[in-house]
C-alpha cells in the first residue's frame, strides 16, 4: 500500500511543479494536468528504467560473478519494476479522468496501445544498451542523467508540441521547417504525441497537440515500432556479446 503511494508521489510532485511553472510562464493549455500527465507517465517509465537499468548489472555484481543465469533478466527486471509503477500511475490517472468527468474519446484511443508498444520497445532496447555499457564505463550513469535532462526537454511533455510547431515553422523563421524535421527524429516525441492524442481531447486540443491526425500518428508510430524492433535486436546483440564478459569485468 505504502509502495503504491510512493509510486504516485513522483507524478504528483511533477504535476504541482509544472502546473506552477505553466501558470508563471503564462503558457495556457486547457486542462493542463490531463495534458501533462498523458506524456509524463510515459516519460517516467522510460527515464526510470534507464537510470536504474544502467546500474542493474553492476548492482548485482555478487550474483553475476557467482551464479549462472540469463543476464538479460537484470535489465528486464528494472523495466518490469518501472512498468508496475506505470500501470499503477495510469490507473490512478484514468480514475482521475473519470472523476473530473473528462472521459475518453473512442476516435483516437486506439493510439494508446500503439504508443505503449513503441514506448516499451524503446525502453527495453535502450536499457539493454546502457546496462551493458555501464559495466565497462561506470561513469555512464552520470552521463545518462544529463542525457535524460536534454531528452526530456526535446520531448513535448511540459510544453505543447502544437504551439511550438506553430512558432518555429512560422513564415518569418527561415530554418524552422528544418528544426521541425530534426525534432521529429526523436522517437520519444512520436510516442508522446501518440499518448497525448489518445487521451487529451479538450475543445482546443488541436492547438496543443502535434499537427498530425490520429491516422497520421498511427502510421508514424508503426514506422517507429518497426525501427525500434531493429534497434532492440541490435542492443540485444550488444548486450549478449558483452554479457559473456560481465563476470570478469565486475
Amino acid at each position, binding site marked *: 500500500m505504502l509502495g503504491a503511494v510512493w509510486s504516485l508521489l513522483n507524478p504528483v510532485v511533477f504535476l504541482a511543479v509544472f502546473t506552477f511553472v505553466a501558470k508563471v510562464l503564462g503558457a495556457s493549455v486547457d486542462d493542463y494536468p490531463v495534458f501533462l500527465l498523458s506524456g509524463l507517465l510515459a516519460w517516467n517509465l522510460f527515464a526510470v528504467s534507464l537510470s536504474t537499468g544502467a546500474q542493474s548489472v553492476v548492482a*548485482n555484481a*555478487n*550474483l*553475476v*560473478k*557467482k*551464479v*549462472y*543465469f540469463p543476464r538479460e533478466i537484470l535489465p528486464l527486471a528494472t523495466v518490469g519494476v518501472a512498468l508496475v509503477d506505470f500501470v499503477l500511475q495510469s490507473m490512478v490517472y484514468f480514475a482521475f479522468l473519470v472523476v473530473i468527468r473528462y472521459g475518453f474519446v473512442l476516435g483516437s484511443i486506439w493510439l494508446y496501445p500503439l504508443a505503449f508498444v513503441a514506448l516499451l520497445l524503446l525502453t527495453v532496447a535502450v536499457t539493454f544498451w546502457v546496462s551493458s555499457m555501464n559495466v*565497462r*564505463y*561506470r*561513469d*555512464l550513469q552520470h*552521463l545518462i542523467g544529463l542525457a535524460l535532462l536534454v531528452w526530456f526537454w526535446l520531448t513535448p511533455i511540459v510544453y505543447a508540441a502544437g504551439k511550438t510547431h506553430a512558432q518555429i515553422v512560422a513564415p518569418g523563421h527561415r530554418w524552422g521547417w528544418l528544426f521541425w524535421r530534426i525534432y521529429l527524429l526523436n522517437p520519444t516525441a512520436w510516442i508522446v504525441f501518440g499518448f497525448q492524442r489518445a487521451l487529451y481531447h479538450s475543445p482546443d486540443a488541436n492547438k496543443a497537440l502535434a499537427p498530425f491526425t490520429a491516422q497520421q500518428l498511427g502510421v508514424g508510430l508503426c514506422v517507429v515500432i518497426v525501427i525500434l524492433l531493429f534497434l532492440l535486436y541490435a542492443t540485444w546483440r550488444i548486450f549478449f556479446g558483452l554479457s*559473456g*564478459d560481465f*563476470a*570478469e569485468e565486475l
Partner: protein
Amino acid sequence: MSIAIEIADVSKRFRMYREKPSSLKQRILSGRVRAEDFWALRDVSFDVAEGEFFALIGQNGSGKSTLLKVIAGILRPSEGVVRQRGRIAGLLELGAGFHPELTGRENVYLNAAFLGLSHRKTDAVYDDIVEFAELREFMDTQVKFFSSGMLVRLGFACAVHVDPEVILIDEVLAVGDEAFQARCLDRVRTFQKEGRTIVLVTHALDMARQLCDRAAMLDHGVIHAIGGPDQVVREMRRTISKHDLEFAREEGSREIEILGGSLHRGADPLAGALAPGECVTLQVDLKANEPVDDPVVSFALHDGANNFVFGSDTAQHGLALGRVDGKRRVRFQLGPVPFTGGQYWVTVGVHSRDNQRVYHVQDQRYSFEVRQTEGRRDQTYVPVTAEVEDL
C-alpha cells in the same frame, strides 16, 4: 558410462590492463589502451563422467576457479567449448551468489529459482535447508551481516537441497567449522552414492585422495597431470616441493645409477595394501657406470602429508658394498611396519660414505599403502602379545 561434463580445448584469456579505463572520460582522454593478454587456461580438455567425483588441484593462481566458472557458464571460454548435461549447482568461492541486501530467506528462494526450482518446490525443501545450515534465527537477516562461515553454510545447504545433477565446489568447505565440515563431507559422500557428479577444487590433498575417483592438476592454466587421485596428488606434491625446496626429482652425478627400486612382500612384488605390522622388503638395483669405491645406499619414507617418517642406509647397518663395478642389488628388510592407514612414499639414493658425493637420488618415486585396521583409530602399530598366568 555417459559424460556429464565435456571440456574441449578450453582456453580463457583475461585482458590485463595496465590502467583499465573504467570510465568514458578516461577512455576518451587516454585514447587507445594497452592491454596484455593473460591466459588463465590453455587448451584444457577432459571429460567428467556421470557420477564421478572429480578433484581439481593446483597451486594458487593456477586457474582452478577460472575453470570451474567456465564449467558453470559464468565465464565464457575464449576458445573451445564446454558441454554439460543436467542442472549444475555451483559453490564458487565465498558467498555462493547471494544478494547482500536480501535476507537469508529471500536469497534461498532466489538461489533456488536460478537453479530452476519453482516457488512451491522451494517451499518443500526450505525447512531442510535451514535445518542443515543451522541458521534458523538468522533467516530474516540481510546476508550482508552474515559471517563468511554462515554464508558458506547457507550456500552449501542450498546447493545440496535443490537436487542438482552436477555440483561444483570451490574450496568452500575449509571455511565452515569442524562439525559442519564433517556434515558437508557426509553429504558429499551421499551425493556420490546417489550417482551425482561432483567437481571439487581443493587444497586439502589428502581429502582429495580419499574421496575422489579421479583428479586433475592444473599448473599455470594447463593440465599438468590427470588420472587417479594418488598419482595426481603425488605429482602435485613433487611439483610443490620442487618449487619450494628446490628438490630435484632425480639428481646426482650418476657414477652409479639406480636402475629401479621395488617393494616386495616376501618373495613376491608387493600388490595391494599392507596391513599394519606386516613386513616389507625394499629392493634397489644399481648399475655402476664407472667403478666406485664404497658407496652407501639409503632410503627415506614420507607420509601422505610429505612428513619425513623414517630413513636408513646400508652404512648404519654395517653393510659395506665395497668396490662396485657392474650391477648390484641391495635389499632392505623392513620389520613389522608401525604405520597405520595411509600412503607412504619412498625415496632411494646412492651416495658416498661421507655424503659429499650424491651419485643418484630418486625422490619419492615409489610408494606403498598401509590400510587402517577396520574399526580402529590407532596412530601407530605396536606388536603386542598378551598372556595370562595364575597367581
